[in-house]
Structures are given as C-alpha cells and as structure tokens.
C-alpha cells in the first residue's frame, strides 16, 4: 500500500515527489471510477494496453481489471456505479477500491453531468484526491449543450479535463493530470470525511446527506451546463428512434426472433459446427488432418508409455474420459471457441445498446418468476453454455435472484450442445409438432418452477433500475476487451472444475461403476418413462457431456416411436446439467443448494418425462 496520505484538507497537490522530506511511495495506485456507460473502459484500454490482469476483487466475485500506466503507477478499473451506497456487490467493490486507492480518475459524461456529478461529489465528500475527466464532449457539442469546464473546475475544486475517449482526445492530458489530483470542495453542511461514511450507513442520515448533495450537485450542473435545447444531430435522432422502437413489445419480439436466429446461425452452425470440427475434430482428434495425429492421440501415446494401456491409471489419465485427454479436448477444443464466440455476440449486443432494452422489455415477465430484466443476460448465455451462464448470474443483485436464475438455467435452459442434439433428432420425432409440444412443456416448466421458487424463497427480489445508453455502432476495441476478459475469467474458473469432473467420471469408468450405474438405471427408466433399457446410457453419458449421449440416441432413434423419442429428448433437457455445470453450481451456490438443484432436476426430469410419455400414449399427438 502506498504511503501517500493527505493531511491537509485544503487543496494540495499530491504529486508523489511533492511532499518534501517524505520518501516518495514506490507505487501510486490510481482508480478509475464513474457511472455505467460513460466510456470508462476506453480510458483503461488506452492507458494499459493489452497487459491486463483480471482477477476477482479480494473476497468477492466481482472482476476488476488491473494494469500499469507506467513503472510507478498502477491502474485499477471498477464497475460502473451511480454512488457509493453498498447496494450491490459491485458497488461495495468499487467503494473499497476507491477508498484504498491513492488517486481517483472520475470519468463523467458531458451529456449526463447532473446525474454523474453525484458520484463525483460523494468521492470529494469522502476526502479522496481526484481529477475529473468530462467525456463525450463531442456528443454534448452535437446536442448544443454548452459545458463551462472552467466554472466546473472552480466549483468542484479539482482539475477538470475535456475528453472524447472514442477519438483518443484528451486522454494524454488526463494522464498527465494524475499528479495534479487534489481534494475538492465538500458539500456545504455535509459531515467531515472521517465520519461521513459511518453516518451514511444510517438510513435517516443518508437521506439527509444525499438530499443535500443532490441539491448542491444540481445547482453546480445548472451553473455549468447551458442547454440550447436542440434536438441533436441526425445520428442522435436516429439512435433515439431506434431505441424507442425497440421498447415496443411487437418490434422487440420480432427483433428477438432475428437475434436468436442469428445466434443459432453464428454459434450453432459456424462456431459449434464448423469451428469446433476444426478445433476438436482436426486439432484435438486428428480427424481429416493428414499427417497430424491429433493432440489427444499424441497424449495417449505418451501416457501409454508410462502406464500400460487399459490399466487403471491409463484410463484415469489417458482414457476416453481421462483427466488429461478429456478435459484438454473439451476445454480447448470445444469450450474455448464456443465461449469466445458467445461472448463476442453478447458483447456486441451489449455495446450497441440492444441488450439493456431487451432487459427492459422482458422485465415484467421475469418479475413473475422472481427475477428482473437483468436476468435475460444469463438466460441468453445459457443457450450457449449453462456453465458459463451460471458464472454470469453474479451480475444479479441479490442472492435470491442468483438462486432462482441458476436453478432455472440448470433445469430448463438447453445449452448449445443439447440444442444440437434436439435439432438433429426432432425431425425423427415428428418435426414441427414435436418442437411445439417440446416448447410448450419446457416453457411451462420454466414458468411453474420460477413461480414456485419465487413463492418459496424468503424475501423479495430487487426491482429493475437500468440506465439505457443510446443505441450506437459498437466499438471494436471495447468488444475485443470485454470478450477477452470474460473468456479468460470463465476458463480460469471452469478449467479446474472440468478436470475434477473428468477425474470423477474416469475413476467411475476405470472401476466399472459407470456400467453398473447404467445397468441399474435401465429397469427404472423402463418403468417410469416407458423407454428401452439402452436409453439409460444416453442419460448417463449426457452427464459427461450433453452431446455425448446423443450418439447412442441417433442409433436408437429409428427403433423408438415419435412419442418415446420426444420423451427422451425432454428428459435429456431437464435432467441434471453436464458435470461441468454441476460443479460450477456447486462452487457458486454451495453444497446444500446445488444438491437440491440436482435432486430437483432428477425429480422434474423424470416426473415430466413420465407424464409426457403417458399423455402422449393417451393422445397420439405426434401420430
């Protein structure tokens, strides 16, 4: 930690070399802070280049990117927040980062100055030295908003710099300005920095202080911003029109269909199909790769030299589900391209402003199952990979919402591997009619499950508050950064769990337990689901990897009736997610909750499967 301490509450420069007689600190830690969507990450990108270290903030699940500005200056990014009130884990992280840092670069937007200055003033009131970057000056100009930065600097008492971060304008000046950071003018009548945090944790005091601060900030904004009230440029008007159109339920519905179809095309066909056949088929397994034998066979040869092929340790390390073979093949051959592709897609939707609007549209519906609009992000991600989506439930505000979302994901959302199986086999189960029955059953299960959880879980879920950023052309650098950070975070989290899961399955296989479980399950499946014994293998292999079980099902499909095949596909969907997502649920949600989710998924899968089988026997819907 740095030793830069500002004793004098009156404005004083905190250049590391300024304090005479005191040894300059080895490192200055600078923290970027600001409201969401003000372009904060562009500053981070510009100052740190690609050398970024993303890790969870100590003791939390919030990711904070860290980098170096130069040899003596560390930079930490923080989640976008509106104030320091500890209302979410992200806010607590941002608050701790700000309080622990030496200097704050507060990024505000010129077009939403009044809103953004609340956080600025709160940081000032907390007694932290800062500089303010007023970003999106070009947007303000286009909207004929005149911002008097000289006056703002005087009123706040801290250096203020104009920037257009997307054009890299003014970023260098802000960087040079870090050394000029100082304490600003606190809100009149607000408590002193050493007692204000304590007082703000009390609701009655908080209301009073927040009221004072809001009034003060609004007064500053009124003096600084002159609104010529022009409607803005054509681009802005178009952006606003599109934004409102997307809030129309009909347009939103159509756009959602288009987006999901594009998702299917991009992720389902190109990534999961073409790209994975390259990474997994060609590179990992050596299929159609000419002289290249494939990484997995190569590793098996090496492992075969250490342990005799067929021996216990060979099966555990190098077998079909071996810790070294299976997890490497799965993590790098399948998951990496899939997760990367999905995150690119989601980051584009997010960056252009589409995702927040979908969150708004779906809020009413999600409220009924105890979630709010924010949950659409994990739910859409679930269509790619439930494991990845479970990790992303961290964006939800309360624990209650995280429980509901991860349960729904585990049980009712089919991941891309399952969708692949469904798409291939639905044709054999009756085509459109089968899809229709499947969708009705799955959707009803989702609604009923969510409603029950919402009723049973104590407390209530938080209401949606979402800032709607203007619709815009996505920024390539932003997308690249977000995608990379998310993918790396996910793989870091998931890779060890995949290895653990494959170890478990490999040991079961090596000890012949896997066969025993399959044989034991056969009669139960016949009695409950009216399906042949062999389908047990489909379900058990589905635990290992969702599309593994499918191979057996392709062979069996012609011997099953339409109703049986549909029952089978329904159960595969609802049945416990793959081992990887099960381990992630266990890690994220704890042992008690994950056990309940897994047991519940068995019960629901077989319960609904049994019901569906019997209903379809009575009503031959699929012919």
């Amino acid at each position, binding site marked *: 930690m740095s030793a830069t301490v500002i004793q004098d509450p009156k404005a004083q420069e905190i250049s590391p070399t300024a304090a005479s007689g005191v040894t300059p600190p080895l490192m200055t830690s600078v923290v970027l802070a600001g409201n969401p969507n003000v372009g904060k990450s562009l500053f981070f990108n510009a100052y740190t280049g690609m050398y970024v270290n993303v890790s969870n903030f100590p003791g939390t699940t919030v990711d904070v990117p860290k980098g170096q500005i130069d040899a003596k200056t560390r930079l930490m990014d923080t989640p976008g927040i509106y104030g320091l009130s500890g*209302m979410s884990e992200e806010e607590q992280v941002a608050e701790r980062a700000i309080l622990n840092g030496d200097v704050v670069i507060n990024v505000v937007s010129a077009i939403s100055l009044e809103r953004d200055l609340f956080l600025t003033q709160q940081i000032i009131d907390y007694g932290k030295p800062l500089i303010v970057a007023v970003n999106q000056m070009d947007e303000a100009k286009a909207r004929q908003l005149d911002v008097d930065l000289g006056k703002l600097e005087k009123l706040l008492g801290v250096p203020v710099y104009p920037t257009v971060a997307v054009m890299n304008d003014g970023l260098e000046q802000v960087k040079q300005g870090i050394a000029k950071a100082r304490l600003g003018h606190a809100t009149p009548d607000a408590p002193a920095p050493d007692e204000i945090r304590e007082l703000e944790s009390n609701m009655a005091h908080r209301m009073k202080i927040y009221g004072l601060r809001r009034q003060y900030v609004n007064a500053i904004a009124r003096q600084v911003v002159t609104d010529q009230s022009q409607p803005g440029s054509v681009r802005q008007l178009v952006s606003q029109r599109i934004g409102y159109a997307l809030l129309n339920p009909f347009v939103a519905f159509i756009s959602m269909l288009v987006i999901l179809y594009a998702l299917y095309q991009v992720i389902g066909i190109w990534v999961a199909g073409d790209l994975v056949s390259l990474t997994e088929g060609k590179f990992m397994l050596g299929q159609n790769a000419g002289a290249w034998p494939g990484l997995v066979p190569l590793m098996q040869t090496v492992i075969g030299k250490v342990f005799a092929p067929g021996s216990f340790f060979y099966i555990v390390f190098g077998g079909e589900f071996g810790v070294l073979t299976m997890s490497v093949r799965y993590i790098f051959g399948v998951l990496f391209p899939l997760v990367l592709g999905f995150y690119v897609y989601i980051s584009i939707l997010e960056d252009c402003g589409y995702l927040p609007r979908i969150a708004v549209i779906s809020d009413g519906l999600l409220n009924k199952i105890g979630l709010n609009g924010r949950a659409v992000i994990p739910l859409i991600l679930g269509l790619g990979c439930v494991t990845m989506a479970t990790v992303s439930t961290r964006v939800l505000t309360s624990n209650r919402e995280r429980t509901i979302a991860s349960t729904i994901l585990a049980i009712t959302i089919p991941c891309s591997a399952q969708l692949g199986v469904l798409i291939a086999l639905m044709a054999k189960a009756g085509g459109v009619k089968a899809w229709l029955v499947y969708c009705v059953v799955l959707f009803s299960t989702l609604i009923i499950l969510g409603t029950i959880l919402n009723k049973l879980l104590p407390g209530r879920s938080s209401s949606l508050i979402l800032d709607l950023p203007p619709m815009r052309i996505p920024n390539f650098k932003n997308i690249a950064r977000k995608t990379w950070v998310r993918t790396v975070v996910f793989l870091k989290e998931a890779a060890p769990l995949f290895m653990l899961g494959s170890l478990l399955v490999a040991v079961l296989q090596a000890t012949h337990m896997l066969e025993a479980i399959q044989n034991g399950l056969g009669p139960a499946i016949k009695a409950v689901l009216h399906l042949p014994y062999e389908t047990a293998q489909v379900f058990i292999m589905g635990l290992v990897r969702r599309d593994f079980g499918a191979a057996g099902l392709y062979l069996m499909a012609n011997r099953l009736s339409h109703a049986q095949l549909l029952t089978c596909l329904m159960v595969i969907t609802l049945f416990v997610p793959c081992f990887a997502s099960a381990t992630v649920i266990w890690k994220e949600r704890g042992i008690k909750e994950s056990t309940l989710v897994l047991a519940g998924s068995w019960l629901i899968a077989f319960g609904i499967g049994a019901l569906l089988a019997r209903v379809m026997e009575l009503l031959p819907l699929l012919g």
Partner: protein
Amino acid sequence: MKNMPFTLEQAKVGETLLVYRITDPETATIAMRLGISEGESFFLASKIPGGPVVIRRGAVEIALGRELCRAIEVARPDAA
C-alpha cells in the same frame, strides 16, 4: 381544485412530471443518485405494458421497474 399527486405507475406516456415524494427510503436513495429528487422534473418516455417505465431527464434515460414506480409520487407541474 388542484391536481393531487399520484404514483408514477399511474402516469401517462408523454407527460412531463414533477417528483412530489418518494415514499420508500431505499427507492429514494436510488432515485437521488440518478438525479430524481423531490421537486425535480422529468419526461415519461415509455411504458412497457406490465413492465417498467422509462423516464428521460436531459440525455439520461432510465428504466424503473413497476415496484419502484409505486413508491414514487409525482404531480403535474400545474399542481405544484
């Protein structure tokens, strides 16, 4: 007779409204940080059927869930 304050949930799209009172302290905290405090005005930009309300203040657009809208009392400017 003067117009009485009513909740944001009951307001109509296209109205400019003044914040009269926020009844729930948690909601008030959230609202104040976003710039919505007693006496301030905003424009009701959109209302999603059965869903959130979208308000606009300058260039800032915020979607507020129905639950929050029930705790925000507003009045038409002529009533203030």
